[in-house]
Every structure is written in C-alpha cells, then in structure tokens.
C-alpha cells in the first residue's frame, strides 16, 4: 500500500463516513426526541439519490435539484410521522407491541423501494457529478490525485452537520427538542408544542437523508437495493455513538467510513462486512456504545 493509496483510501473513507454521519444524525435526532426512528432511512436516502439523478439528467441546476429533493423528502418525513408512526400511539400495547413503529416504517420503506423500481428500473445507474464536469475529475491534494467529488462531499457534509449542531444547541427550537427528549409531559407544560416538535424531528431526519442522497449519488452506483445497506450502516454508526451524543455519531461515522474503506481495499469480497462485525462485537462488550450510558428505572 503506497502512501498515495493511503491518502486516497482515507479520503474515500472520510467521504463515505461523512455520508453515514448525515444519515445517522437523522436517526439520532428522531430517536432522541421520540425513542423511535425511521427504519427506512436508507430507502429515503436511496429515493433522494434517484430523484436527484433524474433531475440532474434533465438538466436542472444543482442548487435547484438540492432544493427540490430536500422539499420532497421533507414532505415524506412529515407524512411518515403523521400517518405511519403517530397513529400507533393510540394503539399502544397492541399489534407489534412497543416496536410497531419498526414494522410500519419498514412497510413504508418497502413501498418507497417498489416505487423507485417502477419509476427507474432495477439496474444500477451512475448519477452525474455535482461539482465538476466529470465524476472522475482529480485534483492534487497533499501531492496525491484525489477525486474532486469526494473532497467536496466531505466539505459539504461537514458544513451541514456543523450547522445542524448550531441549530440543536443554539436555537430555541433545538432546545425544545432536548426538552421533549427529556420528558414530553414536562415540555408541554412549558409551552412547547410536542406534536409539532416530534413532526419536526422526522422532517429533519428526512431532510438529512435527502442531503445524503444528493451527495452520495456521484460517489457510488445508484441502485434500488442500496437503501438497506445505508440503513444498516447508519444504525451501526448511531449505536457506536450510543444514540446519546451527536458528536459521538460523527466520530463513529468517520471511524466506520475509514475502517470500511481500508477493509474494502484489503479484502474486496467481504471487506464491507468487517466494520459491521466490529460494531456488533463492540455492542457485546460495551452495550451502550462508545459514548452512551446505561440507564435503568429503579426508583
């Protein structure tokens, strides 16, 4: 492995890690406020990637594409919460029990996946580049040729995540999410609209999937089965962070992406499974993740 290789692998890993961080942050925020999340997060991402590809191929300017995809996914996120998750509150302890939402969100994921295959077919496709004229354009970075797309994906994804943190910690609405996470009853007594906040976190999760989907198009092949891959990896990343701490999610995602990149290089057949196995082993040793803490109700 040459040093040039190392830099390239590192950057590819960082790019995928940044995408995982975006997707997993969506899971994190929904889980934080509601202890539920979208098991179809990957399918939402996949749909966003297809939609973005279709619009780009139709000649729509990149910024407009991003805006349109974000708007579409925001609506999907709202509808998911409104029609597939919220009605379950009324049916508490029936059906799938406390995990009904896992099954309803997976049901929505199946529908999304089927719609995509109906619209765009089942085969893998290449999405046009976002930032340069060609997917394969290379710039010199640390004396090594690296893909422009990957470099800019990292920059944009990190910028989005940082502004997300700013929102979470610096705005009133962000603090409202933490209040709902702490206790919905208390939050509503403090004048916070809990329903709106819950709807908002699912919209945000969905928007994060949208941005991931737009960004991921040019650095992978787009195909209808990619959703599950991203759901599984985003979960792994979010559990690394213990679902407790957005910084943990970011660190977990970067580590995961980089390990995966090198593992893929070393073993092209099964390399992508190694980081998942590592996360599972870690969960056995440290169940609350790297940054989480175990809690029990023993009053």
């Amino acid at each position, binding site marked *: 492995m040459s040093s040039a290789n190392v830099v390239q692998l590192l950057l590819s890993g960082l790019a995928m890690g940044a995408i995982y961080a975006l997707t997993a942050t969506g899971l994190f925020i929904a889980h934080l406020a509601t202890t539920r999340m979208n098991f179809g997060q990957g399918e939402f991402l996949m749909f966003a990637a297809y939609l973005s590809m279709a619009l780009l191929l139709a000649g729509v300017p990149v910024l407009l594409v991003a805006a349109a995809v974000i708007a579409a996914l925001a609506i999907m996120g709202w509808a998911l919460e409104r029609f597939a998750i919220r009605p379950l509150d009324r049916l508490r*302890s029936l059906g*799938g029990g406390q995990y009904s939402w896992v099954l*309803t969100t*997976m049901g929505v994921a199946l529908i999304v996946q089927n719609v995509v295959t*109906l619209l765009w077919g089942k085969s893998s496709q290449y999405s046009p580049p976002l930032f340069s004229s060609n997917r394969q354009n290379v710039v010199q970075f640390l004396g090594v040729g690296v893909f422009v797309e990957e470099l800019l994906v990292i920059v944009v994804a990190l910028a989005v995540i940082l502004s997300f943190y700013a929102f979470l910690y610096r705005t009133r609405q962000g603090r409202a999410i933490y209040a709902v996470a702490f206790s919905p009853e208390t939050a509503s007594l403090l004048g916070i609209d809990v329903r709106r906040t819950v709807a908002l976190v699912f919209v945000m999760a969905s928007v994060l999937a949208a941005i991931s989907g737009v960004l991921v198009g040019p650095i992978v092949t787009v195909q209808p089965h990619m959703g599950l891959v991203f759901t599984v990896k985003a979960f792994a990343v979010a559990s690394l962070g213990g679902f407790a701490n957005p910084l943990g999610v970011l660190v977990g995602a970067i580590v995961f992406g980089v390990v995966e990149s090198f593992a893929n290089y070393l073993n092209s057949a099964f390399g992508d499974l190694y980081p998942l196995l590592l996360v599972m082993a870690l969960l056995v040793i440290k169940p609350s993740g790297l940054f989480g803490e175990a809690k029990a109700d023993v*009053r």
Partner: protein
Amino acid sequence: MSASTQTSPWPRNGAYLAMAAAIFAFPLLVGNAFHIHIAQTLLYTTIAVIGLNMLLGLSGQMSLGQAGFYAIGAYASALLTAKLGWPIAAGMLAGAALAGLAGCLVGLVALRTRGLYLAMATLAFGFMTEIAAQRWIDLTGGTMGVYGVPALDFGSAKMGKTYFLWVVGSVYLAVQIASDYVMSSRIRRKLLALKENESAARTTGINVPLWRTTTFAVSSLAAGTAGVFFTHQNAYINSDAFTLSLTLTMLIATVIGGLGASWGPLIGTLITLMIAELIASLYDVSFLVNGLILLGVLLLFPQGAIGLVYKLAALFRAPQRTGSAAVVEAAAQRAFTPVAAPAASGPTLVIENVSKSYGGVVAVMKVSLSVDRGTVHALIGPNGAGKSTLINCVSGLYRADSGRIRLAGKDVSTLPAHARARMGLARTFQNLQLVNSLTVMENLQLGLRSRRSIVGDFCAWLLSDAFEAEERGRALDILQQLGMAHLASAFPEDLPYGHRKLAELARAIAEEPSVMLLDEPVAGLNDREAQDIAGLIRRIRDAGTSILLVEHNMDFVMQLADRVTVLDHGERIAEGAPSEVQKDPRVVEAYLGAPLEPATLAAAETAS
C-alpha cells in the same frame, strides 16, 4: 381449590388430535402434489413464525434477522448432506442446531442490550448472512445455488411428499404444543415481566439475561428448523431465498395472526401464504403490496386475525368467568410463612460500610447497619439522603462501589439481584413496579416459588387446565388476608393507587422472604390505609421476616420501627431506638435545618 376452576384440558387436547388427524388425512385425501407442497410450506414456516411470536409477543424483543437463522439452517443441512454425504436426518439436526448456536451468539447482544439495539444488530446480522450467501460462492454457490441436495422422501418417489408432510406436521404439532404450554404457564409470566418491567423481574428472582438469550436462541432454532425443511423439500437452494423479504414475510405472518396468541402463527402464516399466491403474478409490485399489508394490519387491525376472531366470539358468548374470585371462601386463614429462616436469632441483613457514588456525586458514604431477625429497622432521612440508593444496593439493582452486604451470614455483595431474591430478599418500590399486562393474581404468582420442575409442570398442564391450582390457592390466601381477593383477576392499571401498593406488597409476601425491603410503603396513602399497612407489616414481622423500611411518614415509622437509622447527605448521622433518634439534635437539624446553639451541638457531639 373448589371444583369451579377445574376445567377440562380436553377442548385443547382434542384440538391437537383433530390437527394430527387433519395432517395425517390431508395428503391421502388431496392427491394434488402442489397442494401437498403448499401444506408442507405452511407447516414449516409456521414453526419459524411460532418462534418469532414468542420472541416478539412475549419477551418483547424485535428480531429483523430471522432470515439469517433460516439461511444458516438451510445451508448447513444442504452442504452437510450434499457435499459431505451426511445422512439427511443428521444434516437436518446439525443445521437446526447450528442456527440455534448462531442465535446464542447474536443473543449475546440481546444479553447486554435491549430493544432498539437488538433490532439493529439482528438487521445487520440478516444483512451479513445475505451478503455471505451471495458472495461466498465457493461455499454457497451464490445465486447459482447448491445442487445435489437430497430430498427428504424416504426413498419413495410416490409417497415421498406425503411422508415429508407427516414429518413436518409432527414437528409442527410438537412445537405448537410447546408454545401453548409457554403461553399458559409461568414462562409467559416471566417473559412478560422482563419485557415490561425489568426491575420487577429481577427483584422477584428472574434471571433476566438468561431468559432473554434463551428466548432468542429458541426463536432462531425455530427459524433454523424451518430452513432445514425448506432445503430438503426443494432439494436445491440459492441465495435469492434468504433476503430481508423473508424476515418481513415472517413478521407479517406474526402480526397478521395476532401477536402473542396461541394459534396466531398458523392462521397468520396461512393468510400470508394465500396472499403470496394471489399476488404471485403481480411480481413487480410485491414489495408495495407487502408494505401496504404491514401498514394496514398494524394501523387498522393491530390485534390481527385472532383479535378479530375473539371480538366476533365475544358477541356470541356470555361474559367469561371472573376467575379465582369465585373460590374465595375456600382459602384458609393462616399466618404468613417466611422462607426457612436461620434458627438462630441475630442479624439477618448486615450492611457494612457500603458506599455508592454516581460520577463523582456521593450518594451513600460508608453506611453500616444491621437488621435483626423479626424486627423492623427504619431508614429515614431528608430527600436526597441516599435511602433509595442504599435499598437499591441491597437488593442488587445497583452494585455498591465498596462495602459488604450479608444475607443470613452469607456475603451477597457480588451476587446479581435475582440471586439475592432467591435467597429470600424481597422488596417493594417507591413508584410501584407491577407488571401491567398480568393480573394481580399473576403478579403474585411471579413472587411464588414454584415447587415443580418445568417438565413436571408441562405434564401437569397436559393433564389439566387447573395445573396451577395449588399455587393460585396460595396466592389467593395472601390476597384474602389483604382483603383484596375479589381483585385477583383485575389488572393493576385498573386499580386505585392504594390497592396497587397492596398488590406489590402481596407479591413481596408471596416470595416468603427472610428479609423484606419496603421503599415508602405508605407514600400517597391516607391515614386509614397507612394503619392497615402498619398492621400488615407487624404480622409479617411477627412471622419472622426482617424488614428494612424507608418512609417519610414519621408517625408511621415511630410506631412500627424497632430501630431507626438516619441518613443525611449519604452518611449515617444517627442510629437507635425511635425515641432516642427523635431527640437527636442532628436529626432535628437535618430535617428542619434549625440553627443550633453551639452548646447543644457540642453536647450532641460528646453524646455520640
């Protein structure tokens, strides 16, 4: 118990016989090979769904990786028989066992985590198995598959399918009977307790990690068994069969049938297979249809087909018997019996220098106290003094940072909560830890120590529906002495607060403990109710049980306690008889914050 609860097991056993007869007759009456094939598929898929139903419906654990265990069973048996030439039976047993073993491994995650993490871990496991089946071509043949797998036809091309159906049918029936036993026995109560209320489960002696992992392993064994049958039914497998869709199909079948219902898996699988046949021609929209079914069932018919059947049946049937309330008069008055307590008097519970802090905040600091046999020792102190933390350290829900806890002379400091419970340590909780999906009677039964092994219990169940009559009689005794026998079949959530407190106390009494920890037993109760509880605690004490009592109601504490320990800021500031402690100036200060004359303080200092 009186004859009124003696119900015959024959409706149930008759159903098994009828099912056995149907399985036997079906292939003989229906000559059509295709229909026999469908019946085989129905029966082995139901086996996997029964496992999932137990996992999800009773223990409340979500698995999204059942297809992975199914695949492990299928590939193991296919490869062992096709490549290594093992006999079919050996390959099948090994395949199912391997799936169970994989379940134990993945179950390690279940052992340490709950809910969401398990769902995630199983999703990842299923994903990895799917990838391995596709890409590990040297072993699995990928999408090309494994050829040369022997069919299970007992060497008869003509009758092979019939024999196969009989074998699958027998295994299914055995699994169904086992599942029905689980659903109507103490195993159900234990699983529901650990699903709903882990603290209650642990402090009534349930080894939560063990049960959780066992359920998980059993459900993967069931999935593996189905996979093994799948392999030798088709005599060929490839990686297309083991995707997430398979897992979702099994989950759909579980939910459609009705979660946690005995015949739910069979009915759910039947409906799911019928739908699959109906939409076979609509292959392009199969995901869409499955997604809509999932949403439709969970949002519109959350109790599934069984729920609908029960609703219809309820329209035509008189109200159910109210259970054990009818046999109240049969229960005998007798004193509460503690567990075989040490004959010698002296302390039964000794706490030595126990400390506990949370991330730098000291909650309990080197507290020592001992509770003599058959006495009430009260632990008082202002809010935040560390009383509940100490109780949690004693019961084992928290591990003390340092110090020792002895129970009847034995050091239990490192034992888990359930082991301490089994040694005769019972407790109640400040904010009530009852299992809400169990009746009051069943909550009490959680506390009772069963006198039968699982096998003995199973045999008794086969012979009679009233197989737990003796246990229920004991539980009813206790309830009657608390004046709430008429509420035996009520659910805790439907009871007023005072009765729920009593029910929790009754559960602790049912454990026949040598030491009982009571965390604020009269908080939120009125004076009359408090007096009732005080009388009850005296009777428990007189039966020889040692009681450690945390309570804020001073009148209550002072009339009951033989000794009192006062905590403030995690430290013991006084100990003695109630009358002494009441006069202690530091106790007064801790409670009222009254400024003291330096002289008084000095006097207290020298006095202690």
